[in-house]
């Protein structure tokens, strides 16, 4: 009896294997359309993570990655002992928090007001105009911002002087204390309209019967905005908000790179710029990688913390 079962089992698995290859052959076009990209994604997304090893080494480009001097946590210890690191971390967190608060409240208000507009043509035009800056590069935006804020004839200074708020032009770009505000305002100018798209779409998805019912109950316009429209976009808002919290430390560096100058570097340098300066310009690859790892780990932690808080408050999970 025993050998017999073995035989049938063996036959069954060969059969199964054959079926697998048969089906794989049938789906050969699907494999041809997807496998090249899987290989690509391994090279360009997974191999760099393998490169994290360099953070624990004293990496010299002439040797292979496993043929390096291992130094343990030395790079991280040096990082945490560097005073500059804390200044950079402060700048990063300050600008990302300001960006998060302003970048979420203003687009919601903008979408709310657009949603209340009656004139369709004017509404459409404002929307189209408000999307425009999103499509323009940060290089261009940085140029426009420094033009508008310039001390000789910049529109902002002219306007402030016309209002008699200031007698002499303010040197916006030369004072570190202005820098965080300038970055936040430029970001808002660029992305407000774009970020409102999703909220507008969520508002369009609210059941019109809710509004009708509340009209019957005698609710005014503001009550409807407060009790129907805002709760209607809550889920969308929370999902986007929690995802953005994950990006608190990795806010990119384009704005800071392009708007900053040596005069304000104590306020403009962010983690990625710091990594760029040490890692590539000074060729200290291991140290630069350590900064990158710090970045990734904090991002993931922040997403889980934010999701945990949200879960506790609403009993729902985002991730």
């Amino acid at each position: 009896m025993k050998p017999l079962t073995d035989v049938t089992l063996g036959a069954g698995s060969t059969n199964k294997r054959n079926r697998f290859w048969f089906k794989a052959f049938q789906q050969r076009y699907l494999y041809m359309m997807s496998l090249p990209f899987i290989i690509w994604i391994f090279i360009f997304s997974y191999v760099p993570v393998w490169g994290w090893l360099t953070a624990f080494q004293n990496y010299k480009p002439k040797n292979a990655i496993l043929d390096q001097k291992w130094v343990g946590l030395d790079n991280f210890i040096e990082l945490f002992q560097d005073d500059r690191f804390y200044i950079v971390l402060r700048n990063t967190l300050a600008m990302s928090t300001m960006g998060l608060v302003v970048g979420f409240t203003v687009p919601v208000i903008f979408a709310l007001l657009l949603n209340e507009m009656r004139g369709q043509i004017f509404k459409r035009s404002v929307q189209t105009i408000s999307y425009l800056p999103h499509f323009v590069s940060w290089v261009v935006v940085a140029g426009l911002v420094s033009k508008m804020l310039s001390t000789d004839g910049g529109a902002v200074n002219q306007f402030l002087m016309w209002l008699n708020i200031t007698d002499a032009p303010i040197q916006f770009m030369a004072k570190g204390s202005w820098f965080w505000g300038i970055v936040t305002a430029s970001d808002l100018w660029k992305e407000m309209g774009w970020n409102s798209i999703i909220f507008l779409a969520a508002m369009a998805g609210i059941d019109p019967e809710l509004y009708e019912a509340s009209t019957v109950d005698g609710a005014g316009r503001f009550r409807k905005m407060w009790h129907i429209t805002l709760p209607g976009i809550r889920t969308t808002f929370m999902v986007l908000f929690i995802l953005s919290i994950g990006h608190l430390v990795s806010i990119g560096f384009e704005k800071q790179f392009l708007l900053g100058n040596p005069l304000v570097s104590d306020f403009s340098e962010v983690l990625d710029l710091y990594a760029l300066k040490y890692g590539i310009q000074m060729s200290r690859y291991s140290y630069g990688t350590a900064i990158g790892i710090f970045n990734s780990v904090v991002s993931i932690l922040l997403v889980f913390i934010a999701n945990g808080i949200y879960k506790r408050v609403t009993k729902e999970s985002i991730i």
Partner: protein
Amino acid sequence: MQGTIRRSTGDKVFDTFIYIFMAVVAIVTLYPFLNVLAISFNDSVDTVRGGLTIYPREFTLKNYETIFGFEGLLVGFKNSVIRTVLGTLIGVLSASMMAYTLSRPDFQARRWMSVVFALTMYFSGGLIPGFLLMKSLGLVGTFAVYIIPAILSVWNVFVVRSYIDGLPYALQESAKIDGANDWTIFWKIILPLCQPVLATIALFIAVGHWNSWFDTYLFNNRSAENTTLQYELMKVLLSTQTGSNYRDPNAQQSIAAVSPESIKMAITIVVTVPILMVYPFLQKYFVKGMTLGAVKS
């Protein structure tokens, strides 16, 4: 609707407030562009007098003539156009191919491939390992560094996939019965039906390519033949910020007549106009595409 029945004074005040607010938004958004446009068409000596708003005082085309004499700018323009066209074609095709295979419920490898893709949204190697990878692949100092690392965007794959998921599956099944293979189904049925979503991601990819400058800064700052338009603008921008002039050895005489300020503005317009001409026509598509992507994630 609500207003036609009964509009109180408070309602009217609020409506007026909205209109004023929106007008301010429109002006604040447009003014910088119009101001730059005016300066770019204004005589550069006259510009120094200041006070230009949204129309040129002394109209001239000299600023544009000057910048089109810059060798670096022309090369950059050519490279930006090529990378945008090529990169968009490749990006759209690869995202839709990958999305189609992931949307096929009967595809064997669908599960693990989806996981491989989704994981990359949570981590990234970071700046330095990425740079070292490009170096070891020999991509530094080549034009290919603009195309190959940007072949696919995971985000776009998911956007297209959720669109394909919304199409009736019966279409594919009946094509299969008629003897079409998977490639034919993709090419003849899925792609034509996906036009709206493909227009959306094409716009995103094209804008991304056109606007990117950092890859030039990082990988091609020493190879002048691979420069891009945005990078050239960045160089002008940073050099005028620090006070020195943008110098191009081939254009020494003409630069004397035109101030760096006017040059900067003219280049800004050249860089911006192509986008202005495209995006309003694709608006209805990208608004839908944005929503689709957000719902999925």
